[in-house]
Structures are given as structure tokens and as C-alpha cells.
């Protein structure tokens, strides 16, 4: 008993009191800002391993970006990554950053379904499905609920069965071998339900985009409620994404 108390005492205070304002240490590649400086656009576009950069005007799609930082490294005056980790949105287009723009990524509460805030703002149970995920987003989802990030303080939890859940959170590019199980899990959730894509692989297929091994047609008739970028998504991105999406007025 005494030993246990000693160990608990030695941990000190671990939890992050305010996960909406916490600073991330060291280098962090969050929301990018693209300046209006003139550069060789094609060269810049060509650097990106993920085809996340498009030109005329220059845009960076965080739904395709793996945040490797290569573009900023080679064009430091053109692209800069801020430490802003609140980069999730319920609209796919909002993940695209254009040159000359510098504004936070936000939810569009107008396009969010009416019932979401009233039903899920105090309690949200999600079923996670990895569909070809590489176990990095899965890792960060688990980390979101450790004693430091403590996602469950918001009443948000990951549950064992789709029948107990309010929605699905997908990681991974949705490959052929998991497309059917994903669909079955989704169909098993009672209405109204959410569908969330977490990580670059889930949002766009990531580095596997356009690969014949993906089977993303399962998304065709599912309404996607939330996009959480990153590779993997940082716990603070995940937590703020889920909280803003369900609570923002």
C-alpha cells in the first residue's frame, strides 16, 4: 500500500489541464501557411510524395499531406508549418490551405447535422475500425485516452461493440480485405450515427491513394461527418477535433 502511494506521488501531476490551449513541445508540423512569394510552382508540386500540393494558385491539401515537412524544408519562405494542431473539420474543402491565406481551420456548424450537438456533446461512444491502418493512428487514439490527454474527461470513449456506439472512427486507407467488415460494423450501429475519418490514409488513401488494393466505394453512400488529418493524427488534434465537432455552438 505504502509503495503504491509512493509511486503515485512520484508521478506528480501528469494530466494536461487544458487540452485546447496546451503547447506542443519541439518541432510540430501543424496547420501550414503558404506565402505569396513567387517560386517555381512545378518544382514545389513535384517535391511532395503525396500529391498534396496543387498549383495555380498553390494549395496544400491536409487531407493528403503526411506532414513530412519536405516542402517547407526546400521552400522555407513559401511554406511554413505552424504549431496549430486544431486542424480537423467537418468539411473536406476546409482542409485545403491556399497561398496568401492565414486563418484557423474550423468546423462549419451550419453544415453539421442539427442533432449532433444536442445528442453527442456530453457523451460520445465511438467504435474504432482499422481498415488497412498501419497502427500509428491506432496508437495515437489509444494515447488520447492515457492519463495525460485523458479524452474521457469529455465523455468521449471508444467502446467494444458497434451496437454500443454512436459512430465509427476509421483509420487506414480502407483496403479491399476490410471494406466488408467495415460496412457490417457501420450498419450495426443504431441511427443517428457518425462516421469519422482519422489520419491521412483514411481521409484520402494517403500514400496508397489510387492503389487498386483500396476499396473506398463503401464511402459512396455514407455521410462523412468529420475529418481528422495527420499521419498519425496527434492526440491533441484528435481530441480537439472530436470536442469541437460535437460541442461547438
Amino acid at each position: 500500500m505504502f509503495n503504491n502511494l509512493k509511486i503515485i506521488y512520484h508521478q506528480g501531476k501528469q494530466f494536461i489541464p487544458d487540452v485546447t490551449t496546451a503547447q506542443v513541445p519541439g518541432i510540430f508540423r501543424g496547420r501550414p501557411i503558404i506565402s505569396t512569394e513567387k517560386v517555381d510552382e512545378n518544382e514545389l508540386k513535384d517535391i511532395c510524395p503525396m500529391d498534396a500540393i496543387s498549383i495555380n494558385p498553390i494549395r496544400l491539401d491536409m487531407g493528403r499531406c503526411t506532414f513530412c515537412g519536405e516542402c517547407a524544408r526546400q521552400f522555407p519562405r513559401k511554406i511554413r508549418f505552424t504549431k496549430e494542431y486544431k486542424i480537423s473539420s467537418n468539411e473536406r474543402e476546409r482542409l485545403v490551405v491556399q497561398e496568401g491565406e492565414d486563418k484557423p481551420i474550423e468546423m462549419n456548424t451550419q453544415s453539421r447535422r442539427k442533432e449532433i450537438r444536442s445528442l453527442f456533446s456530453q457523451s460520445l461512444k465511438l467504435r474504432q475500425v482499422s481498415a488497412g491502418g498501419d497502427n500509428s493512428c491506432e496508437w495515437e487514439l489509444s494515447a488520447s485516452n492515457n492519463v495525460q490527454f485523458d479524452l474521457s474527461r469529455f465523455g468521449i470513449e471508444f467502446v467494444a461493440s458497434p451496437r454500443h456506439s454512436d459512430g465509427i472512427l476509421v483509420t487506414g486507407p480502407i483496403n479491399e480485405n476490410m471494406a466488408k467488415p467495415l460496412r457490417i460494423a457501420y450498419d450495426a450501429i443504431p441511427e443517428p450515427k457518425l462516421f469519422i475519418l482519422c489520419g491521412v490514409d483514411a481521409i484520402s488513401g494517403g500514400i496508397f491513394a489510387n492503389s487498386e488494393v483500396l476499396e473506398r466505394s463503401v464511402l459512396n453512400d455514407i455521410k462523412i461527418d468529420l475529418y481528422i488529418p495527420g499521419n498519425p493524427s496527434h492526440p491533441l488534434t484528435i481530441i480537439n477535433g472530436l470536442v469541437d465537432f460535437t460541442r461547438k455552438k
Partner: protein
Amino acid sequence: MNYVTIINNQSISLNDIPEIQYFEFFELNLGLVQDAVQRHCVNYFGFPFDKRVKLFCCIADDSTHQIYVSSTIVTAQESLLSFSAKNFGFEKFEREIHENYGLKYKDHPWLKPVRYPKNRFDQSKTMANYPFFSIDSEELHEVAVGPIHAGIIEPGHFRFICNGEQILHLEIQLGYQHRGIEQQFLNKQKLLQRATLAESIAGDTVVGHTTAFSHIWESLVDFNLTRDIAYSRTIALELERIAIHTGDLSAVCTDIAYQLGSSVFGRLRTPIVNFMQEWGGNRLSKGLIRPERNQFPFTPELAARLTEILNIYEPDFLEMNEQMFNLPSVLSRFERTGVVSHEDVLSIGTVGMAARMSGLKRDIRQSHPYLLYSEIDHKPIVKNHGDVYSRVQIRKEEVKQSMKYIRTMLNNIPHINENSIDLKTPKPNSFAISLVEGWRGEICHCAITDEKGKLSHYKIKDPSFHNWLALAIAVRNNEISDFPICNKSFNLSYAGHDL
């Protein structure tokens, strides 16, 4: 000579690999591993060309630090003698070859699907009709779990045959995570795309797999690894080991409902992964390792920061271990649970922790050293009981060992070479192999280039490829309620296996 001898991270001309008749190939490779604990097969794969299949077999010798490579050409029409009938260590490789290219085996004991790849030979085989082993009996029942599991975890299907609460047999069906990643290595032409792919093989072993890919590439373009790059990679590999081992200790505590251990180890992982972010901008080290480059040089400031972090981490880590390993309720769940005997690990041919848990000393850091490991003079941690306890102990001791290695390295930070990127194309008609000891165990990548120096084949082997079978054996005769802790104590990769 009917084989060629190379060392880790060496590339050779394809013509230097002797091409022999299948029967000679069969006798040669079986002979090499017969009664030789120090030798095992690190990779055995097929390379399709011209309606035929060229098989490459790579046997590593831990005592001479060499790798013996041989090859043969076969067709799908022949019916071949299987290696597996004589040596079970080859069973998975032969199943994979059969699944990919349709090669037939006369006497393979268990020719089951491996991962249902997109371009599999027999498209009539589907995930839904996997041929599970079954036993007919009124007393027995089957328990099917997955592909989607209860927690935040990757998918796989487990089929248990139980007698009451006791597991008689477990069969694991994998493939749900298949993303065609080997094919993508050929499709993507940019080096940065391939490095990004390597990071996605198994997102919990980013440093391990990306290092293996980088070494393959650097060997193919004759890049001389500078000391600062080797240094950064060695530190990153050991930090990855510390981070995941710590997380695994938390996970086993969770599975035995030991809340204190679960929380403390869980939070202890954070400073280590946060350091990875301070260093390279990503908690799982994505973006950190790049071929031919020191993307994020390890500076004296980072060294000071890491020393500070380890100094705080260590006493808390040791204190928690001390408490945990003295708690009877914890020990009763760890000891003699999920045992795999020495004979079994030898026969399966497990690698990494899944070998060292049961007296089989396999550790690439010692047997085929790369980076700075020959200077470190690494001594693998070996246990003998093959149970959950051994696997957990290995983690505790390896974390301590890695901290020691890192601290020694921190005393001697190399000067950073300015990057001069002159990207060369790989040598034509070549074969390259790279072995890295990731935190799970032996990672092996092989590459083949064509006459223009383009990649024409890329083969990845994650340690989980061998080790899943050890998990299935481990749970036999255990209570089904002990399955989670057995599983966590192995912590194998689905993505790394399914590719």
C-alpha cells in the same frame, strides 16, 4: 559453390547468385539449417519473370555473420518437394510462394492462405472461405473473434477450439490489413514516396522499417553512410524500442486489470515519444529517417534534452517494475502462462523477443551488426521459460539496456556532415538485402533491380511473419481468458504481416 556468401547490407550482381536445380537448392538450404541453431532462413521468396518463378533463399549464419544466398527457377506446372515437410521453419515462406505464384507442393503439411494479396494466383480463394481447421466433437466448441476486435487495434480473425474454458487449438487468419505495399514500392518512382511507404509498413516500427529500406537503397547506390547518419539511426532505433516496450508493459498491465502499472507505464511512454517529436516533428518518428540524408541531425542540445528526459524516466520506470514484479497477483498471471518451449521456437523459427524468450539467441544487432552496433558490443537479453513472464522481463531489461547504450552514445556526438545530395540511380541487375533488429525482432528487406537500375522486386519481412504461429502455439491448454495477455505479451504486427 552453389550459393554466394554476402553480409548484411551488401548488394551484389544478380549474376553472382548461383542458379541451381530445384532439388540441389532444396538439399542445399535444408542442409544449411539442419541441426544448426546458428543458422536460419531470413527470407525466401519468389520473383516472377517470363511465366516462371525464380526463387531466392537467404540463410543467415549468426556465428560467421554471413548470409548464404542461392536461387533456382521453377514453374507452376511442376509439383515440388516442400522444405516444410522436413523443416517447419519454411512453412510460412512456402505458403506465401504458393499463394502468390501458384507453385505446387507435393508434401506441404499446411498449405493455407497467408494474406489474400490482391494479385494472388488463385482468385477463387477469398477472405470469406478460409479453410479453418475444425474438430468434430460434442464436447468442444469454437469461438470466433474478429476481424474487428474489442479495443483500438488492427484487425485479424482468431478461431479458437475450446474444451470448456480451455483452448485446444487456435488458428489465426490474417490478411485484413493487406495494402499491396510491396507492389507500391515498384509503382512509386520517387525516393521520398518509397521512404513514406517504408514508414507505413508498420506504423509502430517506423524507424526499424525505414532504416531497413534506407540501407537497401544506400547499398544499391553505393552511398557511404556517414557517422552522423549512422549515429542518429542507432539512437532512433533504441528510442523506438524503449517507447514501445514501455507501452507494451502498460498494455499487459491493462489486460490483467492492474491499473497502477497500466497508468504509470502508459504515461512513461509519453516523454519518449514526445522527444521523438522534439527531434523530428512526429511522435512515431515519421519523417525522421531518410535514405542518403541526415534529415534531422542529432545536436548537442538534443543530447542534453534526452539526458534530462532519461534521468527523470529511469527512476520511475525502475520503481514501477520493482513493484510490479513483486506483486503475487501479477506474477500469478505472468508465470507459466502462454508458454512456447525451446523446441517449438526452434522449429517455428521465431525471431526477436519471441525467440529470446525461450533460450534462442537471435538478435541481428549482435549477429549481423549494422550502424554502430558493432561498437556497442551488444549482448542479447535471453530468457528461458518462454512464458508471459519471460516476454515481459525481456522488455524491462531491454529498456534498461537501451538506455545504457544511448547514454554511452550521448557522450560522443559526431560532427554533422553537411548534406550533399547527389542522387544516383541504383546499380542495374542487382540484389540487395538488409537486416535490422526492430523492437519486435528481425526485419528483413530484399530488393532486385532490372537492367536499367529500376526496382523490379521488393520483398519485406516483418518479424511478425514468423512469430504469429508462436502465439497460436502459446495459448494451447491455457484458459481462453488468458488469451489477451498472451497476445499483448507478443504484440505482433498485423500491418507488417499483411503488407
